[in-house]
């Protein structure tokens, strides 16, 4: 057993931490991401230069990474920096295009010149793709889409939009450019969009793409959980610092044991969170993927908002202010649970997998796969 990450990944991690690791960056972030274009000017191109998008693809696919570990490294740093760059959309689209062999589009995405976003959720669809209501129909030589897509992360400003819609064959995947998006800020910063489709012409990438879409979404969930781990680490550290500095009743708040214990619980949950992310990461691409990813998203969906609430509380009034960076971390940690299925969606997923007729209940922990051994 070895929990160290490879040298290359450590380098990527260090590089990102250096790049993001300063306070003015956070100030620029908060000034930029709550209104269009929801990004910090210039950062996207720099991320491309640092190789972030290359890390989303394997060498065969035109990158130098492509595993769950690469994704975990990138998103943990993004979480520490509270980056609101549309990394999630880019990751999901790149993984799907890679699976479809669309090298033509990927090259531009690795370079950061093309940005992608995935439209799979709907007002009444969270994680169960079989409930997709949007439909695709042949029209002449091409296809038209109908229905409403929701919560398209990184939608505003995306060059390429991938859309899921029902076809006769299953869950089709379609490509749109210049989609008529309804754009908004996320409550915690960054861009998000809705899409109402009425006979919208689209290019068909696959008539049934359910398995790759599921796989991409699970990777996206691992990414979000890793982002949460990074953000939790930071917010907990900020809370410790604040309690040491802030004095009331003639002594530092840190000297009150009642508060110390609350922080200890935050740290404990941070450890648990990191462990379940490692578990899910190592199981990605194995038969345990769905189970461990659901566990991770459920666990993070419980502890990340808890850490956010505790941090606000322990800061007192300061924790409630826009000016204090911690409040933005807290928002991120709560809103993460609204992305790609929340803790209850993933608890239900787990409950179904554990139900007696699901055949999974007594399955022993699987032997380690070659992939997890390299972790």
């Amino acid at each position, binding site marked *: 057993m070895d929990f160290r990450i490879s040298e290359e990944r450590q380098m990527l991690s260090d590089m990102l931490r250096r790049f993001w690791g300063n306070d003015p960056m956070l100030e620029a972030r908060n000034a930029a991401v*709550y209104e269009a274009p929801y990004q910090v000017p210039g950062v996207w191109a720099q991320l491309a230069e640092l190789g972030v998008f290359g890390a989303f693809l394997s060498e065969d696919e035109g990158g130098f990474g492509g595993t769950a570990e690469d994704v975990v490294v990138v998103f943990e740093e993004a979480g520490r920096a509270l980056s609101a760059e549309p990394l999630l959309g880019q990751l999901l689209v790149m993984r799907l295009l890679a699976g479809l062999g669309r090298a033509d589009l990927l090259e531009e995405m690795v370079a950061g010149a093309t940005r992608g976003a995935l439209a799979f*959720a709907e*007002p*009444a*669809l*969270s*994680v*169960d793709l079989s*409930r997709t209501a949007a439909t695709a129909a042949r029209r002449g030589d091409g296809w038209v889409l109908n229905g*409403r897509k*929701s*919560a398209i992360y990184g939608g505003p400003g995306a060059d390429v939009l991938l859309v899921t819609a029902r076809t006769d064959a299953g869950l089709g995947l379609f490509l749109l450019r210049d989609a008529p998006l*309804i*754009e*908004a*800020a*996320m*409550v*915690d910063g960054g861009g*998000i969009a*809705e899409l109402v489709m009425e006979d919208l012409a689209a290019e068909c990438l696959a008539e049934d793409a359910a398995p790759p879409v599921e796989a991409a979404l699970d990777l996206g969930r691992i990414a979000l959980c890793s982002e949460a781990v990074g953000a939790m680490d930071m917010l907990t550290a900020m809370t410790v610092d604040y309690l040491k500095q802030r*004095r*009331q*009743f*003639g002594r530092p708040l840190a000297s*009150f044991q*009642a*508060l110390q214990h609350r922080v200890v619980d935050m740290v404990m949950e941070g450890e648990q969170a990191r462990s379940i992310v490692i578990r899910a990461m190592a199981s990605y691409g194995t038969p345990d993927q769905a189970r461990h990813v659901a566990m991770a998203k459920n666990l993070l969906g419980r502890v990340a*908002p808890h850490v956010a*609430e505790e941090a*606000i*509380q322990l800061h*007192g*009034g300061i*924790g*409630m*202010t*826009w*000016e204090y960076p911690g*409040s933005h971390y*807290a*928002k991120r940690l*709560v*809103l993460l*649970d*609204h*992305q790609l299925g*929340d803790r*209850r*969606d993933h*608890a*239900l997923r787990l409950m179904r997998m554990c139900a007696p007729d699901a055949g999974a209940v007594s399955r022993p922990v699987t032997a380690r796969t070659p992939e997890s051994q390299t972790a």
Partner: protein
Amino acid sequence: MDLDFTAEEQAFRKHVREVIRGELPREISDKVLQGRGLTKEDIECWQAILNRHGWLATTWPAEFGGPGWSVVERHIFNEECALASAPRIVTFGLVMLGPVLIKFGTKEQQDHYLPRILDGRDWWCQGYSEPGAGSDLAGLKTRAVRDGDTYVINGQKTWTTLGQHANWIFCLVRTATEGKPQDGISFVLVDVNSPGVEMRPIKLIDGSKEVNEVFFTDVRVPVTNLVGEENKGWTIAKYLLTHERTNIAGVGHSTKDLEKFRKLAAEIERDGEKVADNPLYAMRAAELEADLEAMRVTNLRLLADASSGAAEGHRSSLLKIKGTQIRQELQNLYRSALGSAAALDADDLSENELAVPVEAARAAPVYFNHRKLSIYGGSNEIQRNIVAKELFRE
């Protein structure tokens, strides 16, 4: 034992309900329901309506313009206001300062200020907290130095709720530095438009601007604006806090929020079932309903004790902790029920672009805003300290 309201109390409820629902303007209750900010005019409009009925200063004795209600009637009224999505009345003049002036003020102060609170000529805000004095209020540093017939005030207050609308602020200031910190504090009334007073907004986590910093630079205040005796402000401050906590359990708000959740859960669907049928959401709602029902009875038990003069101070601390926990958990559940739609900043969308009912669209910002409930009015940790001190007293 009888947990029912008396026939008179039920008739009272029916009456106030009809009046509130009949007179509360729809565009104002819609804003409250949807968690949108109220303007100064909205609040003034609602308070003027209540004042016409003599229902504005519910804790004042009848001779000063109060309605002369029992604690139970007051409780019923508060509950009905919350259920109707009425704006919260601005408590600073009505709930805090009014009773202080009635107990500690001079006849002149009462005659001058109380009518102006009722008819809305004065909007008060509360100048207690300072950057260095939050939980440890007695650590406050804002100085008032006597100079003939005036005090000269220097220092800073913060977290001043709705100070932007106020023309008056009541402040705790330091008038002596010897002895225990509590012994050198005085309670003074300051005209916000005096030279040297500067109000700056603080933007909160949800983007709202409801609190302010207030700076005092050589602000001159006539000594007649002192309430009670010099250096005896701490007693007043403590008296005021007991009034601040009268409606602290927020049972009406929680009842309304649970009702809102049930309505939303019956409307929206997720992954093939109504959220109301999702066992995990249904279970959490059921648990919170149980918590709330118990809180309702706890609250009434305390009110019964208060009516008979047997209330123990530390039990109102328990009410505050549990009451705010329930309110915050209901916000949590409501926000969660929206799933991915909660992440959109509703202010960027028109009503027909929303994927969710309009009253739910601001659920996430409203949830964040409600984190304040466990911080202000004496934080929940400070409330626990109060109870613990009582329990472990030698």
